[in-house]
Each structure stands twice: as C-alpha cells, then as structure tokens.
C-alpha cells in the first residue's frame, strides 16, 4: 500500500521534492495479436516502445500468499508501452495489452486509475476484441473502439462494427491508422473527450 498513501506529514517534509515530478496518467491500448498496438503506441510515443513483463499469479492473486513460493509462476504476459510528455507537469503512458479474455487479469491492474482504453480492432478478426469490450463495459472504464484501417481499407463500416460488437450508443467508434501520429493523436483525443463526457454525468 505504499504508493496510495497520502500522508500530509511527508508532503510537508518532501513537498519540494515531488513538486517537480510530472503527474503520470495512462491510457490502455487493448487489442488482439498483431492488430497494431505497438505501432499505435510507437507512432506518438517520445521513446521507442519498451517491453515489460508481468507474471500471472503475481498480479492476479487477491489472497495473502506472502512467503508462499509456490504461488510464483513462470507464466508472463508482455506489455509494450510508450510515453508522451504533455508539458512539464504531465506525462501520459500508453500500455498495450492483449485483448483476449485470458489476459483479463492484466486489465484490473492496468485500468486502475486509467483515463480509459482504446480497443484497437482489425475488422477481419472481430472476435479478438470481444473480451476487452465486455470487460471495459462491465468495469465502466471509458473506452473507444478504433478500427485500424490496414492499407487504408476498412472491411466493414463503422456502423457494422458497432452492431457487431453490440456497443452502447455513446461509445465512440472511429477509424484510425496506427502508423499515423496524427490519427493516433485524434484517437486518443476522442477517448479523452469521451471520458470527459462520462465524468460529467
């Protein structure tokens, strides 16, 4: 519980220390294998996307298993992420995470304190994003569905995507191009605007 403690005594003592540290915020980029998550992140990131690994039971376990070495597992999931500086006092992290249901354990972790999620979709593989869409709906995480137009082509209209995923009317569905910084930026802005509308309710 280290980082969530808000201790007024320490903020007095150390206020000048963290005042110059930007506030980190994050957006989750979910999607199936090879849908373009890392490309999407990399198109706007200040750094080349980095990869980190999380172990399955380490994150998913909600029970007290301190000292229980058997709870450790070699099952890991790789996440690619990037960083976007938004002025001196704010930094946005983009975490790419697999969209399949079996990676659900990551999403509890990643969506905590997140602005929201971009579900990146390849219209040839709808089913890869069902799990993510269902999860974000249930967890009430603001999300947009962004159809990655490979080679500028959409195989289904945005309306077909909306119907195919059975989305609520207020969930934005947009076309994007993961390779394009401007399109990625527009997609992220769509999400932030959507989160703002949601926050106002």
């Amino acid at each position, binding site marked *: 519980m280290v980082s969530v403690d808000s201790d007024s005594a320490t903020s007095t003592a150390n206020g000048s220390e963290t005042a110059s540290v930007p*506030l980190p915020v994050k957006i989750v980029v979910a999607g199936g294998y090879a849908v373009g998550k890392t490309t999407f992140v990399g198109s706007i990131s200040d750094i080349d996307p980095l990869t*980190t690994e999380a172990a399955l039971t380490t994150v998913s376990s909600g029970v007290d298993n301190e000292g229980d070495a058997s709870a450790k597992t070699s099952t890991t999931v790789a996440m690619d992420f990037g960083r976007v500086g938004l002025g001196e006092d704010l930094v946005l*992290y983009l975490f790419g995470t697999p969209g399949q249901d079996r990676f659900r354990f990551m999403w509890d972790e990643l969506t905590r*304190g997140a602005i929201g999620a971009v579900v990146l979709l390849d219209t040839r593989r709808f089913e890869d994003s069902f799990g993510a869409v269902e999860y974000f709906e249930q967890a009430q995480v603001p999300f947009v569905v962004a159809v990655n137009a490979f080679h500028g082509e959409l195989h289904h209209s945005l309306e077909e995507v909306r119907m195919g995923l059975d989305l609520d009317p207020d969930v934005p569905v947009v076309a994007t191009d993961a390779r394009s910084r401007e399109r990625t930026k527009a997609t992220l802005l769509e999400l932030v605007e959507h989160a703002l509308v949601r926050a106002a309710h």
Partner: protein
Amino acid sequence: MIDANQSPQPNGARRSRLRIPPYAVTGGRTRVDVDIPFEALVRTTPRGRDHMQLVAFERRDILQMAETPIAVAELSARLRLPVGAIRVLVGDLSVEGHVQTKAMTSNKVDTAILERVRDGLRRL
C-alpha cells in the same frame, strides 16, 4: 484536491514489515506492493543519493536510473526485471526514504486532469 502522493516516511513503523534483507532481491514476496501502479514515477531522494554506494545490485540500479523521474514500467523494461519485482524493490526503497513515488491516487480521473490531458494532446 491532491492527486499525487508522497512516499512514506522512512521510519514509518507500521510499514516495517516491508523491510527485507539487503541481499534478497524481493524475498519471495509478490503481493505487498501491488498498489504501486505501472506508470508511477519514481525519483531518488537526496537521502537515496547519499546511500547509493551502500546499496547493491538492482537497488543501486534503481537509485541511479531514478535520478531523473522514471516510471516503474520503464525501470522494469530497462533493468529486464518483471514489473512485480520492481514494485517490491521500489516499495522497499520508498519505505527507507531512498525514493519517492508519484501517481494518481484516485481510481477515477477527475475532470480537471482530463482537461489538462486533452489540452496537452491538442498541443502536440
């Protein structure tokens, strides 16, 4: 409203259970620091800088890398350690007052921050 948080006091007695021997990497513990988010920014304190030569291995790496603020996930990627291990190490360094961490404290992002993110993105 305070969105960022400060790392705890080095001598916070109630957190003493987090201490591990200096020769262990994470001591087999995987759960206690689960609340440090992946994006939390870590920065070495002056105290941590003074103690840099006294700590070893991964802990020293973290103190060196966090001289400028760096996220938990970035430490994980650059040190090639699972993010869970970084969390435990950062948690311990934080308890000892060697680093401070900064992250959102609330689950929901408030309107003021969303507006700052929106404006920041527009300026890109």
